[in-house]
Structures are given as structure tokens and as C-alpha cells.
């Protein structure tokens, strides 16, 4: 019989799974989201029977307390880089990634030695690869983010990364662009981060009003749960702000950048394949110099 753990698909939830698994001494063979489990029980519902979950599935309720204890234990056994790698792997949001992370955490908690160095182990290796993909995309995005200045003076950027790298970009941009307010908005996951010169908070875009770009948001930034693909937001046309929202002179600056981008090409050496290899087409709609190409 397979042991299935259902949890809310948050990082806190996953750490709670670890806690419960160790307490119950039963370890999952599969992980599922809460709703998936309910759907699985739907047929029996229709038959008029009680909505019975399969006997070997177990519902985990997320608790900051449980998660906190697991995380403390992990921090004792991992280097700072190791903890970072683990978080990056989580943000990969790859199918099956959570079970891999679970197995990794178990390895860490069970081993006496510093496990990270042992890349020969398949789980450690795969987790490292997953984290690497995320960090690589983060590094790419550090370059590929393009701000457009809005009439309100806020610099706005839309991105659509494969992995959920936005949380990993915040330090870099609050540091670098400390004296200008900005928003970086993930179009795929439909949430953004707003820096208002004091701090960063999570926001969601609203439809534009007479006075420009609108948004609302909470005080701090919880880690997003799952990816939801949605139609593009009304303020955005393929990730670019509606022209009526732009600051005066913004179009000229953008034209200059496009002009520069064209002028820098060495025509004798055109190599679009190489260009796409470094900068996959996937990112183009969000790049000022390539949007619409």
C-alpha cells in the first residue's frame, strides 16, 4: 500500500509533512495537494457513500510551529549555502519536486556527516540540479528585468519566468535601485513585488483607473503556492504597459535603447541561434528591445 500525504502545497506545509512523518514514523511514497485528494474521493461521493479518503492517505495541517522546528533542525545540519539551495529548489515549482525535497530533507536529518558534499548521491545531486536551474534563471532575470517608467514615477517591470524566481530577485534590486520606487510583476503567477523606498511587499494588479496604474497588496510576502496560468492582465499587453500609463519621455528612452541594441550588432557575424541560446525566445516579449519580434 502506498502512503500518500496531502498538504497545502506551501513550503511551510511541506516542512509540516516532514514533522508529521517523523512523529508517525510513516513516510510518504507520494505527496498531493489538498484538493487533489478531495477530487479523488469524489466518485464515492457520487455513489452516495461517505466521502472516504483512501485508508493510507493522511492529511497534514500546516503549522508554523512544526515547520519552524524542522527548519531549525535543517539549519543545524546544512551550511548557509545548503539552506539556500534547498529554498531555491522549492521555488523551482517542478512537478514531483516536493517529493524530491522531502527525500533530501530526510537524508539530511538522518545522516550524521555533512551530506551536502556528497554529490555522488542521486537525491543530493538531483536537488542540486534543480536549485541550479532556479539560480541560473534568477541570474538571467537579474539582467532581463526591464523597467518602464510610469506617469506616477513608479518603475514597472513584467516578467514570466519558468521558476518562481521573483523572491530571489528582491535583495538585488532593493540594493541596486534603492532610490526609485519599483514593481516587478510575475505575469504567469499573477503577483508582484512593490518597493516603495522603505520596503517590499506583495501586490496584485487591479484594472487601471483614470489616474494610472493601480494595485493592492498585503504587508509582507508569503511564498506563493502554485502556479496559475491566467489570461494577461488588462493593464498589460503581452507584458508591456499600456502606453497611456507611461511617463513623459519614456518612449524616447525606450527608442534609444532599441537604437543602441541595433547599432551594437556586428553585421558580418549575425548568429540568431547563438542569440536565442543565451536569451531564449520565451523572454523576448518582456524585453524592451525585442518585444514584438
Amino acid at each position: 500500500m502506498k502512503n500518500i500525504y496531502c498538504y497545502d502545497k506551501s513550503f511551510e506545509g511541506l516542512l509540516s509533512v516532514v514533522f508529521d512523518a517523523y512523529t508517525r514514523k510513516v513516510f510518504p511514497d507520494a505527496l498531493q495537494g489538498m484538493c487533489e485528494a478531495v477530487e479523488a474521493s469524489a466518485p464515492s461521493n457520487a455513489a452516495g457513500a461517505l466521502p472516504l479518503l483512501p485508508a493510507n492517505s493522511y492529511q497534514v495541517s500546516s503549522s508554523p510551529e512544526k515547520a519552524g522546528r524542522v527548519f531549525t533542525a535543517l539549519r543545524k545540519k546544512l551550511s548557509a549555502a545548503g539552506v539556500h539551495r534547498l529554498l531555491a529548489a522549492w521555488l523551482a515549482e517542478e512537478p514531483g519536486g516536493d517529493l524530491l525535497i522531502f527525500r533530501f530533507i530526510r537524508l539530511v536529518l538522518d545522516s550524521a556527516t555533512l551530506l551536502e558534499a556528497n554529490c555522488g548521491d542521486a537525491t543530493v545531486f538531483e536537488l542540486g540540479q534543480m536549485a541550479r536551474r532556479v539560480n541560473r534563471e534568477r541570474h538571467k532575470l537579474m539582467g532581463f528585468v526591464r523597467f518602464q517608467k510610469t506617469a506616477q514615477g513608479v518603475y514597472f517591470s513584467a516578467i514570466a519566468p519558468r521558476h518562481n524566481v521573483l523572491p530571489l530577485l528582491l535583495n538585488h534590486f532593493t540594493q541596486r535601485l534603492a532610490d526609485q520606487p519599483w514593481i516587478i510583476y510575475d505575469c504567469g503567477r499573477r503577483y508582484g513585488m512593490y518597493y516603495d523606498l522603505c520596503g517590499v511587499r506583495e501586490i496584485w494588479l487591479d484594472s487601471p483607473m483614470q489616474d494610472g496604474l493601480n494595485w493592492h497588496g498585503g504587508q509582507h510576502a508569503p511564498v506563493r503556492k502554485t502556479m496559475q496560468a491566467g489570461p494577461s492582465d488588462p493593464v498589460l499587453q503581452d507584458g508591456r504597459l499600456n502606453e497611456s500609463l507611461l511617463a513623459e519621455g519614456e518612449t524616447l528612452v525606450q527608442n534609444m535603447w532599441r537604437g543602441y541594441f541595433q547599432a551594437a550588432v556586428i553585421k558580418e557575424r549575425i548568429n540568431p541561434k547563438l542569440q536565442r541560446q543565451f536569451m531564449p525566445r520565451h523572454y523576448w516579449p518582456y524585453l524592451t528591445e525585442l518585444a514584438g519580434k
Partner: protein
Amino acid sequence: MNEGTLKKLKILAESAKYDVSCSSSGVGRRNIPGGIGSAESWGCCHSFTEDGRCISLLKVLLSNYCIYDCAYCVNRANNDIPRTAFSVSELVDLTIAFYRRNYIEGLFLSSAVLKSPDHTMDMMLKVLRELRLTQRFNGYIHMKCIPGASQELVRQAGLYADRLSVNIEIPSEGNLKRLAPDKDYQSVYLPMRHIQQGILQSREESRRFRHTPRFAPAGQSTQMIIGASPDRDREILLLSSLLYKGPGLKRVYYSGFVPVNGYDSRLPAASPAAFAAPVASNTPGASGLPGSSVSPVQPIKPIKLVPKVREHRLYQADWLMRFYHFEAEEILDESSPDLDLEVDPKIAWALRHPEFFPLDVNTADYAVILRVPGIGLKSAQRIIAARRFRKLSADTLRQLGVVLSRARFFLADSCALPAGGAAHGRSFTIQEAGPAYVRAALLDKKTRQSRAVPAMRQLSLFDSIH
């Protein structure tokens, strides 16, 4: 800034683009309160042009009016091209506007020679001062010093720029004088030495005092144009290795010559040495004739584009010198003055030294492991870390990032076989098969198909080399 600035930008970017260096690495710096910008020590590419090159810095000339007449340069005095110059505030505004939108990592400022080298340096310094002091700009700045600039101006530049460079352009003095009559070794190497002194002095002072201004913290770099003169790869690499041995030189860039001026009698039009060898190979990327399988004698066109692959091989060789503990003399000896265009220089070295192999990564030293083709810096480090836990076999090596299709010829059976030692996974080592066979096996597919593969040599373990 207005439409006029846009026109200037196009002209001054056009003129600057042949300088290949675009790196923004080498210095990590946090923002200052009230300032804008920071520097990432690993560098960052913001975009890629249609030719596949990274755009990291806004690379422009301050002006393209030039009093000099270098044969290889678009901006030389004799060329009839549109000329213009930025005003200081124009360029400063442009840099800040681009930076705020995250288009760039910083500024790469260079210039043609206006009136005199020092006059030009003076103008460039105005831009740097305005950016650093007035705008409190904290991003990356690379400034290219003008050959012949005085020590005082170089010193000031070092206070504001992260990286300074003086381009050597032509690897040997005779050729430099012929192609750039207004320049000589002196005018290039003196400013380079001033930069070096500035770096050493600031290092020394920072040891004694707490707050010393940093001098060009990302060091200096230089560039050589490849294929505008008949200089051989060996001479180029020897010069590079000499430069790397001095303090503060971080990078040598190699720029394949693009004949921007059409035919110029000073360029090596009729020198087969510069172009014939590259053209003869049928390697992808080489601008050889399509479909030529053997090496026919090519008719030498007046000016030919330097094959990208030669430039690429030079960078690989440069990389071996900087990170893999190779000496220039090891990469190219007197009998082979040019890099092999068909295989990378590391493989070329291994093929000339079969006596070094096969080796067992479970026991070999790090420096030795680094010499195995197919094992890079990262995988070598991982091997050292992982072998403390287990004996490494082919499967684990693959996981550690080793390219076994290349490495297998150079590894002992003890680590090149799948765990358990199943004999079917076995391949021949370079000792058994001989360098000619391994070479053929390591050529890329396209080249290989056009050749007959040499028969494997009789197995003889103690064969002498060459």
C-alpha cells in the same frame, strides 16, 4: 536628451562596438546611501545582440573625431563617416536613464583621439566625475585609456573607474607601427604600467590605512586584434601569458578582425599565414568553403573575415592559462605556432602527451585531473569532494558533470567503467588506440563525416610518442 541624442547614440555605439570586452565582473560593491547602483562581482548580461554577444555595459565613444589614422579602425581620420560627440551631461543622463530601467550594468567609455590624448582623457574624466560625484552613481564603469595619456590623468581615472584598459591591438611592435603609425609600444605600455603602479600602490596603502580610495578595483584589461597582422597564435599567447604574470591584469581579449575599411594596403592581404590555415579546416564556424572535405589551396581573397573559431580557440587557450595551470609554452611549442582549429587546445595537448594517461581520478591530484579532456573545473572539484565518500565509477562521473565521451580515452578502467566493471562499457585508452585514432574520434560530427577515420593502431602499451 532629445531625438538628436538618439542620432548621436547610434553613431557613437556603431563606432565602439568592435571593442569586444564587455565584462562587468571583478568588483562587488554595495550601494551607498542616497546613491544609485551596485556592482555584482560575477558580472551580468542584460541582453544579447543578434550576433550573440552579451550586452552588459553601455559601450560608446565620447567622440569619434580622430586625429590618428590606424589601418584597422573605422574611425581613422581618413574615413568619410558621420562624426559627432556627446556632451558630458548628455552621456551622463543617458547612462542613468538606462541604468534605472535595468538595461545595463554600467558604462564602458572609450573615445577616439580628439586634439590630443590628454585632452581626450580630460573630457572622459569629466563624465566619470559627474557620474560618481554628482549623480552618486555606483554601478560599473570601464574606461579605456587613450594611448599616450599622462600618468596624472591615468591616476585620476583609476579613482573613478572600476576597470581600466589600454588596448595593445597589434601583438608585435613592428606591425603596430606599420598599421598605427601614430602609436608605438611606449604609448601603450606606459599607461598600462601607470595603471599597474596605481593598483599596487593602493593595495599597499590599504594595508596600512583604513580608508584608502580604491584604484581600478576590477583591475585592467587589454585587447588584441587577431588577423589584422600576420602574428602567429604562439606569439599572441606568449605575450598574454607575460601580461598575466604582471600584477593587476585581469583579462586579455581577442577580437577577430572585421575588415571595416575594405582594402588597405597596410593590412596583410597577401599573407597566407594569417588566413590560409584557418580556411583550410572544415570546422563549423570557420568561414571556409562549404563542403570541401580535404584541404584545398584556397584562393586568398583580398581581405577575409577571421574565422570565429580561431578567436574561440584563443579564448580557450587563454582560459587554460588562467585556470588550468597551463603554460603558454605547453599549449603551443615552436613546432606548432598556431592553434589547432579542429580540436580544443586541451585535447590538442593531451594528444601530444599520451604518456600522461590513462589516469585514475580516484587517486590522482587535482592539478592532474584538470588536464583530462572532458573534465572541467567544476567537475574536478566535485570529483575531489565526492571521492571521499565512495569509489567513483563511470556512472558517478557522469553525474558529476564529466563528459565521458571525451574523457573515456584518458581514464583508467578503474574509473571509466560502469560500477561492477561490466566489460561491455569499455573503450580504448589513448595508450591503446593511439593519438591519431583518438583525435579522429573527438572531432565533431560534421568534420568527422568528411574524413576517413584512421585505423586503430595495434595495441601497444609502450608506444613512443610522435
